[in-house]
């Protein structure tokens, strides 16, 4: 029982580490503008072989490291637990292999999932050139893109103004923030009213109402855009004044999305209401004093979804703001930066803008993730 880890395993481990380090280094070297390790290109003319060897080494190396790590942990646990029977060991070995495979799969998935985000962050720090390029790691680093988001410069590079008052990123950002905050509040109130009523009250039109809304939801929402635009235009809420118009459109139809919170209210026991009613509370008091404090998770969920949705809406915002910069939200503004005539000057600025938009929203989401997951899973199971 003294020797818990065999020499072979250690050798494999070291070999794996070396191989993956070599592979990683080879790949990294390939993508660096100024390779650390100057390769004699006469000697290694074939890029294909070179990079393939690098990737191969990396994969094999990772595999070896994982394999050895698992066998080390198995050997260690075997050394500690003398009661393991032979059958058990077989089970454990197959389990270990499948777990290894799953770990590798998860690592690959994570890399795929993270790549775009890593790329966008790296590109946002690229100073030169401003257009799209085929490499990821910038040759020149700097914060210029972020600065350019917030100040307007003339051709000579002199700062003319901040972008708040005129037609820039800051304006769009504030627009979106205002829309998102209003939506979060109003949408929550409306959806809670709707879902609570449909969950707790039994009135004649209830079933019909729910069916009606189900049918309404089958119409493509895009259809109503044209008419809503014309109505809002009559009210003077388009182009430069698109923000209140957008808020109105978003919150007005938010009652349709009552499903998730209704599912939540359905799970709260009715005896709570009844007990309070017997004690003489009105329906309104029941909602305010008993249900609402219990509904904290769903309130947070609704606020969160209400807050996040406006950040991503492009179609309505684009249609209603009619390319008037003061009325745009970030989605429309940043989309325009990627249009064919602007992409060559604004690509890195887009990346920086994307990062600035994404970070607060993502942080908020990550903090409240628990509630979101509860809402989403509950909603799907409930229908």
């Amino acid at each position, binding site marked *: 029982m003294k020797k818990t880890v065999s020499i072979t395993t250690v050798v494999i481990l070291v070999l794996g580490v070396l191989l993956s380090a070599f592979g990683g280094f080879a790949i990294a070297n*390939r993508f660096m503008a100024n390779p650390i390790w100057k390769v004699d290109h006469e000697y290694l003319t*074939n*890029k*294909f072989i070179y*990079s*393939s060897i690098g990737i191969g080494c990396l994969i094999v190396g990772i595999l070896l490291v994982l394999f050895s790590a698992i066998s080390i942990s198995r050997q260690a646990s075997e050394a500690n637990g003398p009661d393991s029977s032979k059958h058990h060991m077989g089970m454990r070995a197959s389990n270990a292999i499948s*777990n290894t495979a*799953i770990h590798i799969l998860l690592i690959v*998935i994570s890399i795929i*999932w993270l790549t*775009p*985000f890593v*790329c966008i962050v790296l590109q946002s720090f690229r100073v030169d050139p401003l257009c799209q*390029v*085929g*490499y990821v790691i910038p040759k020149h680093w700097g914060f210029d893109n972020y600065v350019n988001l917030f100040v307007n410069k003339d051709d000579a590079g002199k700062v003319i103004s901040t972008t708040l008052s005129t037609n820039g990123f800051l304006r769009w950002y504030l627009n979106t923030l205002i829309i998102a905050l209003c939506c979060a509040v109003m949408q929550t109130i409306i959806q809670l*009213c*709707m879902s609570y009523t449909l969950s707790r*009250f039994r009135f004649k039109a209830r079933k019909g109402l729910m069916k009606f809304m189900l049918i*309404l939801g*089958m*119409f*493509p*929402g*895009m*259809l*109503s855009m*044209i*008419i*809503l635009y014309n109505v809002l235009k009559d009210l003077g809420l388009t182009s430069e004044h698109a923000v209140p118009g957008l808020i*109105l*459109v978003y919150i*007005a139809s*938010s009652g349709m999305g009552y*499903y998730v919170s209704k599912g939540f209210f359905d799970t709260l026991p009715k005896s709570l209401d009844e007990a309070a009613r017997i004690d003489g509370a*009105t*329906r*309104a008091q029941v909602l305010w004093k008993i249900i609402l404090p219990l509904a904290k998770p769903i309130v947070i969920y609704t606020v969160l979804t209400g807050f996040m949705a406006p*950040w*991503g809406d*492009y*179609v309505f915002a684009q*249609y209603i703001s009619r390319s008037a910069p003061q009325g745009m939200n970030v*989605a429309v503004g940043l*989309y325009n930066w*990627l249009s064919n005539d602007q992409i060559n000057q604004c*690509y890195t600025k887009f990346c920086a803008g*994307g990062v600035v938009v*994404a970070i607060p*929203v*993502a942080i908020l*989401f*990550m903090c409240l*993730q628990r509630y*979101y997951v509860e809402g*989403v*899973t509950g909603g*799907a*199971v409930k*229908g």
Partner: protein
Amino acid sequence: MYKKRLTPAIVKLVCAALALAVALFFFYKAVPPIVKSLDVDWSGGKPGFFASVMLGLYTFLYGDNIDSLAAADDGYGVHLFACIVFVVIAIALLVLGLRELKGTNSFNRMADKSGIEIKKEKRPTIADFFKKVWSAILGFFKAIGDEFKDIWLTFVNGDWKTKVSYLVMGFGCIARGQILRGLLFLLFEIVFIGYMIFWGASWISKLPLDMTKLSGATQEYSEIYDSYVTTYHDNTFKILLYGVLTIFFIIGFIYTWRLNVKQNKIAEGIIKSGKKLKSGKDDLRSMVDDQFHKTLLALPLLGILVFTVMPIVFMILVAFTNYSGTNDGVSNLFTWVGLDNFNELLSWKSADGAQSYAATFGEILAWTLMWAFFATFTNYFLGMLVAIAINKKGIRLKKVWRTILVLTIAIPQFISLLYVSKMFAKNGIVNGFLMDLGWIKKAIDFWGDTRNNGLMARVLVIIINIWIGIPYLMLIATGILMNIPADLYESAKIDGATGWQQYSKITLPYMMFIMGPYLLTSFTGNMNNFNVIYLLTGGNPLNTAASSTGIAVGHTDLLITWLFKIATGSGNKYYQASVIGILVFVIIAIITLIVYSMLPSVKNEEDFQ
């Protein structure tokens, strides 16, 4: 105990045969490119083993005519890929069909194992559906008849206060002491009559959009400017809009009037029985108590009525007009055209050289359905697999994996989608990476390649959609996985079931059972998935043939993006967009209706309780 089901078995086997046929077709198409890519010197030299097999196959399928090879496509990957996919589908269907024949489908097995009794209720047929519709129509007319009868009887049997109320709303209430109610009724009547006299009547009277009675913009001499200026007269857009609103208002008035009559009847009954009527104070109190639901629903329903129902009604009406960018209702009036727009969109006739609208519509519809199918099911199965992988016992750092995946939800979609779209651009990172690796020599035009109906872009869109969609499915599936009764697994383990058996016999059927409705909604949601398509490809690569109908359409355009392009593109053919919108609604409604009645869990899930 298993119940054999013949019809589903036959359906599945036939589908399997069809899939196999499609697979063979793709294989047939794949052979020449493969042979061509082998680049064998046919005249001399000795081909290798694989090459000679392929050449034999080629001569078998296409005859000895080697020259035709030169005309073959370059790429074979697409065909081969499709072939493999369809072979897999065929095998899966075959297995399912055979199991159905044996009577051992998963639902039966699961029910048998767990002891849960799945209700074997009679499935609704199409005939049942029509019967239901018919009885609903009958019921509707009967209800209206009853209403009229009740109104008449109330009038005949009522006292004079009630009779006056038929003309002066709320009179009865005021006369009986319910001042607040009565005043509200009266106020509503005054507002309604005032509106109708001053505005409503004229809107309604213009609603037939009779061109002989309306006048559009004219050039008139203005003394102020000393020149001719355009003067606008009628605005058919406003006529239609306010006409619809007025009709809503009239319906609301009729409902309120009926309520007023009912109130009188109820009040008479209460007085007769010697009880006291509710006072205004009681009414106010009931707003937050007995009638609290009305208070709560007032605001949301008003919003839905004005911002959802009204636009939909309006746009349905637009489908029967010629409202467009040129006939915008202000400078050029639009009018009713009956079913002309439907005829145009669904007719096979076309101007010479142009593809007919019906063909374009069919093409886009086919891709929309294909997209919805693949987008839904790839996400569903892969998301479930990822969820199971993360939740497996012995997997470390569960939270880390989950957080990484959830990042795609946390970051606003337009950023990630736009960026990913640019990553696959011709000068984007992916091409740069591949070229740097030396795997390709020329940049691949992911979004512009029109070969095989833009198959590359289509597949790529579906793959990127997996990237977007898996995290949602992972979260949902995790929640459901936790809820699967643990004793199912324990009994399976005791019986010696392997991990795969547990997965295919317990997990998968259970998930299917629970998530049926979710799959349906996500299918219809994907059919209308504007964001992913529009931000990723914008509909590209361009479909030249289909674009000849008027608006530029791409191979990845869904019906919904097509609708958007028609409405915002040159000419702004709103009428055509509305027709497409109505057709999309019809298609989705049909799919929902059919699938919903087929879902195994419908009985448990239908009422959202």
